[in-house]
């Protein structure tokens, strides 16, 4: 029993499972799976039969069984065929390696069994033993991603894959297949981007990929040139970077191939008939662009260029231009034509209108002028654009008579002048001039006298033989004829000195003039200007103004800076021009180009008078406003004076000392100073003043001496009492035969006593040295003589240690007594500075003073004896103590009270004169006594 139950359960389970597999519970396995690879498109189309509509798909790389796709898709069966189809786009070329596909049906509860594997063989199967790379010659847009695979040759190893110059990371797909993926590809070069597969030793294989852009054309415009056909053009857009012929952009216009664009690489297409709507399709392997345009034919008329442009009639002032049209339909078209005239550097345009316009008359041309004409036309109604322009056509107009000349007459004296006329411009000459005809007539002569001048002349001299005015007519002549004559009557000559010439200041290089209107100026005014002081062929310029004008500006173009101009205004009437006003001025003042001339100094005592002459007017280059005088020092100029009156041309520099001076004089205008003229002077002593300076004080001193002498003479008694009192006679105890007289002490001419200070000595002591007179001056530097002391030297006492050898040498030439005194080293002596007489004085000298009555016999011997005696044994005797009892004292008493020299410290009254005792009645004594 139990065995049957078990069997029944097993059977029931088996039935249930069988029912499920048969579609009751589990969907049936899809049948008839087929695959259809599209290698260029890298797609795999699968088809199968099944009752289900939901399927699981799995795709493997066959060799390594790597799952490439595992996806559940809902696919309905085709109602006609009953087949399910699904397409898979492979990221890799299908040739890279073999693929295996299987499919199973799915419902909500369960899935069927997998269908048998369907394998798509790749190129890496053993029967294909060579190397391959996929894909080949692919065209992709810039920025796209792309995979390449390399199938390595049998028995060859793999090294790397290069994308251009870039080494890529490769992934192995099968035994022989390696793949790379390139992202964001840049645009290729002209021949594409190379993708190369390398083995360790050689290049295995490769591929080329073309990376570019889809077409970028834009702006389709269609128009007609012949009023029937159409020409459509557009702008080429971005470069597609696809150079290969098969990848170039192809164009179609309204469905027709555009041969002009596809073969000639232009960007226009033509159509034989006008269609109001136009569609241009631009296509390359990477994309398509569609451009459209829509217009009526009459709105898009673009005329061709006029043909056969020519001039049928040329005149001096006009020309007739004619042309033809190559399209017959133009003849009825209402058109507008634009004519462009070029002459020299100028151009002008003129528009003309009319149906089928084919000729125009050009007015307003200039005679004897070259013109170049171009012409273009357009449709007058619904103007679209100007048509093509004709080629340039050259026109030369005929000549005509010249215009009248601008004539003026300039008088440079009362009977000479010159007729000037301005050259005619090309516009006014109307042809090359052959010359001028100048005719003149005077009131006293009938008829005209005519002179022909060549074309280079622009003036003609006029001479007035008498006081009557002359009228001159000037006309220009060219091949077409003679111009209207221009007449002018000689204006009255007025020198500047006869007028009040105003000073004219330039304004920005110009002269701005204004004058009072003149009622007689029926024919206007003439403003005339020329360089002041000009003679001969002067550059006279003028401007004729209407009578309504009373001001004028002489432009800087006709003026030269730094040149003085004379500007005159004349009124014009039927007769001679009448001078109204005259100025002189500079359009622009400059500093003088030349310094003052003839600069000279003239010394007067301590003063210097500088004088100079102003520079010539041509060199002034401005109105001289004054002069500046400088004293030139080593490196700079010191301004002495600024003379603001230009008429003053001298200056006195006062109070100069005796030295050398250099003066600089500069003239200045409103523009500044010139370089300056320099003059130098050396101040010298005035000899007259020198004489005066010497003689006057001498005279005064002489007069004073005379007055003092007179005064002293008148008051001699008083003077005698005051300065020369009576000296009592000495009391002589003995018998003195010789008459008594005052002690006459005569200073030694060769020995003076000098008081010196020696640093070697004791400063508390001073020595007394006899000094030779002739050495006094030379020794003044070293020996200071106390000549300024008020204390009489006679009364001075000096203590001195005597014995210095050097001092002995110094006084070696002195008298023997002095030498003996100085040379004494044995006795310290105090004595009065009484000079000892020298040996040359003969009897007047000696070792000591002697009484005057002493015998004069044998003075030399006596002197030597005394000298030896005194020098060797006794030396000097003290003289400072006066002992009237002693003979010596008595001898000296004669000198006491005698006047002494304040400088020599000697008695002024000599001890003796010659060899005889001097009587007391000397000249001074006589003077004081009133004796003659």
């Amino acid at each position, binding site marked *: 029993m139990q065995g049957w139950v078990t069997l029944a359960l097993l059977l029931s389970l088996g039935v249930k499972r069988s029912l499920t597999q048969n579609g009751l519970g589990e969907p049936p396995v899809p049948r008839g799976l087929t695959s259809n690879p599209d290698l260029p498109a890298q797609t795999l189309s699968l088809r199968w039969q099944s009752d289900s509509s939901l399927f699981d798909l799995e795709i493997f790389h066959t060799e390594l069984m790597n799952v490439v796709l595992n996806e559940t898709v809902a696919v309905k069966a085709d109602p006609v065929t009953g087949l399910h189809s699904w397409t898979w786009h492979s990221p890799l070329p299908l040739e890279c390696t073999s693929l295996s596909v299987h499919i199973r049906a799915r419902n909500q509860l369960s899935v069927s069994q997998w269908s048998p594997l369907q394998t798509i063989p790749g190129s890496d199967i053993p029967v294909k033993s060579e190397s391959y790379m996929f894909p080949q010659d692919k065209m992709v847009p810039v920025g796209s991603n792309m995979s390449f695979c390399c199938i390595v040759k049998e028995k060859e190893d793999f090294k790397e894959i290069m994308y251009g110059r870039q080494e890529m990371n490769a992934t192995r797909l099968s035994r022989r297949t390696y793949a790379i993926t390139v992202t964001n590809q840049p645009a290729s070069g002209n021949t594409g981007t190379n993708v190369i597969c390398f083995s360790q030793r*050689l290049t295995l294989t490769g591929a080329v990929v073309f990376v570019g852009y889809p077409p970028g054309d834009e702006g389709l415009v269609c128009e007609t040139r012949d009023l029937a056909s159409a020409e459509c053009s557009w702008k080429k857009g971005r470069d597609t970077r696809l150079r290969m012929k098969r990848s170039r952009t192809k164009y179609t216009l309204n469905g027709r191939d555009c041969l002009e664009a596809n073969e000639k690489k232009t960007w226009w297409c033509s159509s034989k008939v006008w269609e109001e709507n136009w569609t241009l399709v631009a296509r390359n392997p990477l994309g398509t662009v569609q451009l459209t345009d829509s217009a009526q034919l009459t709105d898009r008329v673009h005329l061709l260029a006029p043909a056969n442009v020519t001039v049928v009639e040329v005149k001096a002032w006009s020309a007739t231009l004619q042309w033809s049209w190559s399209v017959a339909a133009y003849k009825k078209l209402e058109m507008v034509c634009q004519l462009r005239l070029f002459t020299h550097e100028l151009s002008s345009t003129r528009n003309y209108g009319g149906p089928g316009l084919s000729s125009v008359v050009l007015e307003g041309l200039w005679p004897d002028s070259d013109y170049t004409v171009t012409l273009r036309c357009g449709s007058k109604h619904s103007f679209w654009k100007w048509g093509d322009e004709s080629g340039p056509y050259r026109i030369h107009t005929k000549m005509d008579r010249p215009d009248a000349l601008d004539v003026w007459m300039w008088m440079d004296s009362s009977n000479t002048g010159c007729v000037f006329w301005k050259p005619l411009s090309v516009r006014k000459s109307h042809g090359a001039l052959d010359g001028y005809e100048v005719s003149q007539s005077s009131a006293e002569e009938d008829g005209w006298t005519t002179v022909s001048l060549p074309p280079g002349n622009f003036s003609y001299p006029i001479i007035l033989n008498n006081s009557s005015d002359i009228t001159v007519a000037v006309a220009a002549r060219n091949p077409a004829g003679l111009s209207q004559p221009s007449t002018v009557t000689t204006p009255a000559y007025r020198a500047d000195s006869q007028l009040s010439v105003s000073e004219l200041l330039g304004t920005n290089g110009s002269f701005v003039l204004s004058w009072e209107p003149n009622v007689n100026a029926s024919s206007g005014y003439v403003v005339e200007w020329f360089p002041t002081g000009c003679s001969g062929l002067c550059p006279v310029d003028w401007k004729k103004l209407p009578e309504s004008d009373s001001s004028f500006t002489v432009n800087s173009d006709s003026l030269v800076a730094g040149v003085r101009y004379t500007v005159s205004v004349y009124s014009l009437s039927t007769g001679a021009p009448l001078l109204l006003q005259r100025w002189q001025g500079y359009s622009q003042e400059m500093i003088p180009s030349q310094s003052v001339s003839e600069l000279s100094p003239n010394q007067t005592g301590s003063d210097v008078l500088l004088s100079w002459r102003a520079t010539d007017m041509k060199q002034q280059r401005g109105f001289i406003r004054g002069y500046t005088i400088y004293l030139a020092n080593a490196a700079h100029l010191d301004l002495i004076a600024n003379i603001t009156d230009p008429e003053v041309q001298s200056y006195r520099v006062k109070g100069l000392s005796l030295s050398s001076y250099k003066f600089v004089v500069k003239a200045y205008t409103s523009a500044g100073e010139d370089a300056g003229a320099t003059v130098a002077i050396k101040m010298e002593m005035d000899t007259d003043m020198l004489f005066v300076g010497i003689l006057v004080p001498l005279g005064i001193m002489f007069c004073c001496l005379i007055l003092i002498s007179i005064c002293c003479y008148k008051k001699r008694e008083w003077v005698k009492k005051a300065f020369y009192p009576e000296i009592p006679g000495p009391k002589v105890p003995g018998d003195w035969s010789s008459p008594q007289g005052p002690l006459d002490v005569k200073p030694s001419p060769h020995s003076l006593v000098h008081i010196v200070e020696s640093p070697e000595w004791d400063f508390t002591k001073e020595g007394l040295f006899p000094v030779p007179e002739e050495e006094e001056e030379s020794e003044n530097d070293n020996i200071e003589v106390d000549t300024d002391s008020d204390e009489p030297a006679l009364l001075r006492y000096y203590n001195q240690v005597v014995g210095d050898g050097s001092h002995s040498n110094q006084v070696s030439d002195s008298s023997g007594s002095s030498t003996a005194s100085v040379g004494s080293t044995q006795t310290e002596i105090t004595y009065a500075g009484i000079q000892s007489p020298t040996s040359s004085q003969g009897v007047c000298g000696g070792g000591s003073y002697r009484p005057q009555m002493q015998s004069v016999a044998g003075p030399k011997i006596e002197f030597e004896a005394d000298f030896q005696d005194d020098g060797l044994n006794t030396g000097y005797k003290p003289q400072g103590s006066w002992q009237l009892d002693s003979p010596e004292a008595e001898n000296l008493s004669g000198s006491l009270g005698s006047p002494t020299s304040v400088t020599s410290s000697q008695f002024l009254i000599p001890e003796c004169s010659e060899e005889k005792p001097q009587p007391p009645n000397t000249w001074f004594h006589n003077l004081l006594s009133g004796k003659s």
Partner: protein
Amino acid sequence: MEGAADSDTPVTERSAADRAAALARLLHRDCTRLLELYKERESFLSQHAPGGERLVTLALCPEALSTGEQVGHVRSALRRCMGLLECLIVREVEEMGEELEGEYESLRKTVRDRLGHLLHSTGALLEEGEGGCPPSPPLQCTEGQDEVEASGSFAAKIWTYRVLLELIHWTDSASQTLHLFHSEKHGQQQQLL
């Protein structure tokens, strides 16, 4: 006839052979430069080692014995090269159009013209008494393309590279052979004098 030409012909032959040799040398330099330019354009070729058989083989003519026969041999190879070059130009113009006018394109045209002159001058040498190989049949451009293993732009580039190598090889051979030819002629002339 040879005796009649003794006085004038040797000088002409010598100078013609000399000029042909100089032209071959110049052409060899041109071809070398052309390959350099092509390598600048296709940079991968600098690492490429050419493989496979020669595009131009010597099977067209049995091994030459004399220098004159060698000249004929080389001339046959140059004719084959000329055919390949013309195919190359056609193919490149077909692919790229004629708007590219760089140095490569200019020199490519120069090589073609000078190769034509060299063929003409060597043909003139052979016509004056020297034997040569029978003329090769004209080359069909499709034939050249068939010789590469694969189709496509990459294969065409490899093929172009091989054609340029053949040009360099055979212009070098022509230069040497013509120089030898000229030397021999010159030696014969010296012996005659």
